């Protein structure tokens, strides 16, 4: 799925989600490296093709830089790199999934958007205590789809250290 198709699919899925009142929740899944990840469709604001970003000095490698999205400046996080893989070799085919977390917007750089998954909460399995992956805390659960494990991203935890943590601190000070 390229970016445009993904946008259309997302819009349709959101529309469909409004009509069906079942317990099924919808997730946008995407590929980064060899893995599949998904986020709740509610938190997805926009999907756009990769464009050059403005890099930020002295930041962790996975913070690729910032982007202008209709007047707002958003950080772009390289998901593969954030989860311990190498830097993504970007091309115009790569996709940025813009998500909202606690009033903040962040772009996730991924290889491609895969699908819109519709599933109920019961089908999502908890993260095994001994998953072996040290980054397991950033997942809220796993979903098995056609023999493939899709890791559900816990966005506040995934983005906490860069995006949310500092903001929370500063707000509580000088009260």
């Amino acid at each position, binding site marked *: 799925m390229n970016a445009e198709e993904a946008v259309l699919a997302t819009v349709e899925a959101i529309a469909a989600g409004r009509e069906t009142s079942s317990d099924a929740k919808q997730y946008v899944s995407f590929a980064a490296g060899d893995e599949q990840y998904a986020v709740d469709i509610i938190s997805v604001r926009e999907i756009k093709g990769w464009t*050059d*970003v*403005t*890099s*930020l*000095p*002295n*930041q*962790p490698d996975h913070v690729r830089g*910032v*982007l*202008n999205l209709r*007047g*707002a*400046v*958003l*950080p772009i996080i390289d998901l593969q790199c954030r989860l311990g893989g190498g830097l993504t070799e970007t091309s115009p085919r790569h996709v940025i999934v813009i998500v909202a977390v606690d009033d*903040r*917007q*962040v772009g996730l750089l991924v290889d491609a958007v895969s699908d819109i998954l519709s599933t109920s909460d019961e089908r999502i399995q908890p993260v095994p205590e001994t998953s072996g992956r*040290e*980054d397991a*805390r*950033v997942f809220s659960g796993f979903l098995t789809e056609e023999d493939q494990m899709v890791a559900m991203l816990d966005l*506040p*935890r995934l983005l*906490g*250290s*860069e*995006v*949310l*943590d*500092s*903001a*929370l601190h*500063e707000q509580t*000070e*000088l009260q």
Partner: protein
Amino acid sequence: MNDFEQFKQTFFDECEELLQQFEDVAGTLKAGSNDPAGLDDMFRSVHSIKAGAGAFKFDRLVKFAHELENVMDRVRSGRMELSEGDPEFIIEAGDVLQDLVAAARRGVEAAAGLEDEALGRLQAMLAGGSVDAVAADVENVCDKGGAGDFRIDFRPHRAMYETANEPQLLFHALVALGELSVVADLTKLPDLAKMQPDEGYVSWQIEVRGVPDRAAVEEVFEFVDGDCDLTIEPLSSVAASPAEVVVEPEVEAPDAKPVAKAENSGPAGVQSTSIRVELERVDQLVDMVGELVIAQAMALDSLSELVDIRHVKQLQALEDLTMRTRQLQEGVMAVRMQPLKALFQRFPRIVRDLSRKLGKSVRLELDGEATEVDKTIIEELSDPLTHMIRNCMDHGLETPEERQAAGKPEQGVVRLSAEHRNGRILIRVSDDGRGLNPEKVFNKAVENGLVDADAELNKEEIEALIFMPGFSTAAEISDVSGRGVGMDVVRRNIQKLGGRVTVESNEGEGSTFTLALPLTLAVLDGMLVSVAGERYVVPLSAIVETVCPDASVIRALPDGGTVMPLRGEAIRLIDLCQSMNLSRHGQAEPLRKLAVIVETEFGRRVGLVVDELLGQQQVVIKSLEANYRRIEGVAGTAILGDGRVRLILDIDGLAAMAGRNPDISPKGGEIAKPEEATGGLSA
């Protein structure tokens, strides 16, 4: 009343202004006679607070405001004169009023008995003030009457029509009360030719049945009482229930000359007309103009390629557009600008309260209150400034005995001043107290693990230690300046505004804290520079000049930095490529680099080494922190004409990074946090 919750915010905002107005004049009051216009303002302030408070049922506030209003009304109308000690008391009463408003605002009950003392004194002033005060308003003795059927004779006078009262509407109101029958008496009606349209010729006999009580009927005729012949009698022969006598506690005496006074205030018109606008709307406008500036820059960018000498007209039109866009932007920004006065004037009260609490005599000097700053900045300054002033009074100033022993006047001085400089605003908080003892500060920093005991720091570096997180410890948090907040938080808050705070101190002579802040948070004139293929914006206000130093004049420093001479001064060079951690990716270094000489907030000059200057541009500042976090050396971001984001360089941050003494290790500051594996949200 829930519908009116939405107006509470307006009410409290308004209270702030009204309290300020009250306080402003209160500070000028003296025993004897006072400026009538000022007294009117005070009276109206309290009156408006009371009226609003009544609507929201802030009963204690209403009660207190009521008494204070009565006193102010007497004073302004000359029925009461302020005697010795009264002006001070009025200021205190204003403080109590402010506390009651503050409690209401926070939605909490004010401390029990908070207002009792002042209330008692106000009441005493009213009781003893003048003779007419004790005359109770006998007109308010009224007969509540009973339920039932009534007969009403109603003969309007001409005066009733002159106040636009309509018999018809009164009948409608009566219908709402009960069953109504009306008979018009037209016997007094003259010939049509002689008829005066305004005259009351008609009278009515009205019967209304099943009315809840007589008072309801009287209420209908409330406004026309006196402008008509009116009798209301029970229809039944059964007497109404025994009359209840109610005396209104109102002791306010009639205003002697309301009309005359109003006439006086007519031509003065000193008050400038103003409107209140939601800040949000202004912000939207600012944002929109910001986008316009970007769009205009983009248009200019793309058109400049096409335009040649044949298109002089188009060129001029474009220039015109550029100029007007700029004017529009300035105009919109000006809407957000406010004098610091409103902020500064909170401090006399804080200082007064605190000097009492600390047992120190303190004089507060204010300067530069008219300096205008963006409203957002003003709001954000309140807490840091309050903290700094408390800090000066608590820690900076000595006790009167200590001052005497040191040969200083007993009364300490705290000075708060503001001025515009280089497109920024400088605010200084200084005291003539004991100053910082470098040795003590250093030892404490060592004790708290902020620096190594064998570190070699100069005076400036030592003084800067007080802004380090973890410098102030719980042990010395006093009830005055403590509150668990250290100077590090002050610094962080100022930094959040794109500002900086420094301290300069001389032991035994006092300390001066200087805040340097941008005038506005929205736009900036910048110089676009490039280095290693990246582009950055340097605030134009910081740039002194640009030089092209010969490699041979550049000297290395022991700490790895470099300096170049400039008219006898050694200028530290900051290699942007290095500071921004850029790699040249095979891009050749330019043969001769440029050094953009910039001045830090505190007059120190450094040279930013760049490859190229790309030209001036006005940029719209976008916060990096809105969606990310602060980065050292970066003041913010800007969106340029091509739609791309560029970083605005923070000169002082860069200078600090380059000149950082490696001995100082900030704890958990904003400098590159160690990457916690998952960095979860602890909440």
